[in-house]
């Protein structure tokens, strides 16, 4: 009986050792939050102007934007070629955080006058991330690093609201989409083995990417609460973004207008936590 137990113990040990050193597939599920990096100064900034008749005060505040900021969740399928090197392909969805600014102008001279303009910008993106994985292959706590590329696509929502002393109020939303953004990702993290089958992991991920949508459409345009979209021409509502375009002085109003592509920063540094299942 003791011999059988000893043999079983040895087999188990061999099995565990083998599983650590041999090829194997794994699946992981993760979620996390990313902060902006490589952010840029777009057209967003906070500004206030107050005029009292004898003097005026202006306040300026910069707003740094990277649409890679936000919550993400996803899954990866990976394969370890040996205990040190692997490759994985991950898919994730980014629910981007909002960037906002506010510009106001107030005058207390003779009569009070106040005008406000605010903008907001956010993105929702699918991200595909193939990567190479290196790890020392430790048993209980196993650090690792990943390096890969990022392919991203989705939409950016750009909202503009203006209120001109209550007499004219506009509310406009533009959706920017199409095209694919590319970048490079890198992560460091560690796996904590729960059982032969499952591990928890936590990692820090850096994404260095940008996204240039190739079309835009105004999806909402209200003036004093009345929908203006039915009266707008195609060229006013739709826009095609190109790296190069030629325009004459009488562009057609029945076709989308054209403009140069605008790249939006998508870079971030984030913390992800997740569960890995060895298949």
């Amino acid at each position: 009986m003791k011999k059988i137990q000893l043999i079983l113990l040895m087999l188990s040990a061999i099995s565990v050792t083998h599983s650590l050193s041999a090829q194997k597939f794994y699946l992981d599920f993760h979620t996390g939050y990313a902060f902006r990096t490589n952010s840029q100064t777009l057209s967003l900034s906070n500004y206030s102007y107050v005029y009292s008749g004898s003097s005026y005060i202006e306040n300026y505040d910069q707003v740094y934007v990277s649409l890679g900021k936000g919550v993400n969740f996803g899954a990866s399928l990976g394969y370890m070629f040996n205990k040190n090197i692997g490759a994985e392909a991950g898919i994730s969805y980014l629910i981007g955080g909002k960037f906002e600014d506010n510009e106001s102008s107030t005058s207390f001279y003779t009569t009070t006058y106040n005008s406000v303009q605010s903008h907001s910008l956010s993105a929702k993106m699918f991200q595909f991330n193939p990567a190479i994985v290196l790890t020392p292959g430790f048993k209980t706590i196993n650090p690792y690093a990943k390096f890969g590329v990022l392919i991203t696509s989705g939409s950016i929502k750009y909202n503009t609201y203006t209120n001109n002393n209550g007499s004219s109020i506009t509310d406009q939303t533009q959706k920017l989409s199409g095209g694919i953004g590319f970048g490079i990702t890198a992560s460091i993290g560690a796996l904590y083995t729960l059982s032969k089958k499952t591990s928890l992991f936590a990692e820090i991920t850096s994404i260095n990417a940008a996204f240039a949508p190739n079309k835009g459409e105004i999806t909402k345009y209200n003036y004093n609460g009345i929908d203006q979209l039915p009266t707008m021409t195609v060229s006013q509502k739709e826009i095609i973004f190109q790296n190069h375009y030629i325009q004459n002085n009488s562009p057609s109003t029945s076709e989308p207008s054209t403009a140069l592509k605008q790249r939006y920063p998508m870079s971030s540094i984030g913390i992800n936590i997740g569960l890995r299942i060895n298949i």
Partner: protein
Amino acid sequence: MMKKIFYKLCIVLMLGLFTGNLSAQGFYATINAGYGCSLSGQNSDIVNASGVIYPYVFYADNIYYPGYNFYQSYDATQVYLSLGKGVSLGGSLGYMLNKYVGAELSINYLLGAKTTGTGHMTYTGGAYGYITTESLSAKMLQIKPALVFTTGMDKINPYIKFGVVANSGTITHSTNYTGDSSYSYQEQKLNGGIGLGFSASLGATYKLNKKFSLYAELQTNNLSFAPTKGEIIKNTYNGVDQLPSMTVSSIKTDYVDHYTLINGSNNSEPGKALKVKYPMGNVVLNIGLKINL
């Protein structure tokens, strides 16, 4: 919550670093050179454009606004800017905690390439118009502490590095204008401040002997740089230096995240403006020599 997770992750990583095979501990030094292509480049004011413009356009108030162009035709090409583009030279000092994990500190000098946009406008009827050329480039010193993960293989040893990058230096912004009756040139230096970001590399060392290895790596730097000071160091109009007649506020600029003006600005002090972040993102192909010390 996030902080707790971050600290726990750090502890887990540190535990991982000091566990395992200690036989490969040792210091090493590297020297490397490479070229960086722009990554996550952004739009700036720089574009390549050509067009035909109406020479004289008057508004109803009979005033000509020279800043406004009315195009008969316009041909524009976008120019994406990342000042991380260019030649990178550097070296590092590292220490392998064991066969698989190490830490290193590297210093690089980025000799940034120029990004240029040219505007060429002619007046209707073919009359000569003007040419503008605007360019930006950077020279930066970068410090990169990083963790190193290797497979511990003998002859060809793949590795990944992950760390932070601190970056400081100077951006040169020049504008050249040549019109039918005048020409001008302006050069501005932008410096001060430190850009922070993240750096990662994927590469492999090729062992030549016990002491030396060659390596090649693909490195990505994820950062931007917002200078805190700007100064116009050259401004000529038809060849005549304009700097002596310019006010301090038009020559020098302090860039800040927030500022307040009361009844306008003071001409005898540097002007104030909101900071502008310049993209420094790149992907660099480095080759180098590793020396085990």
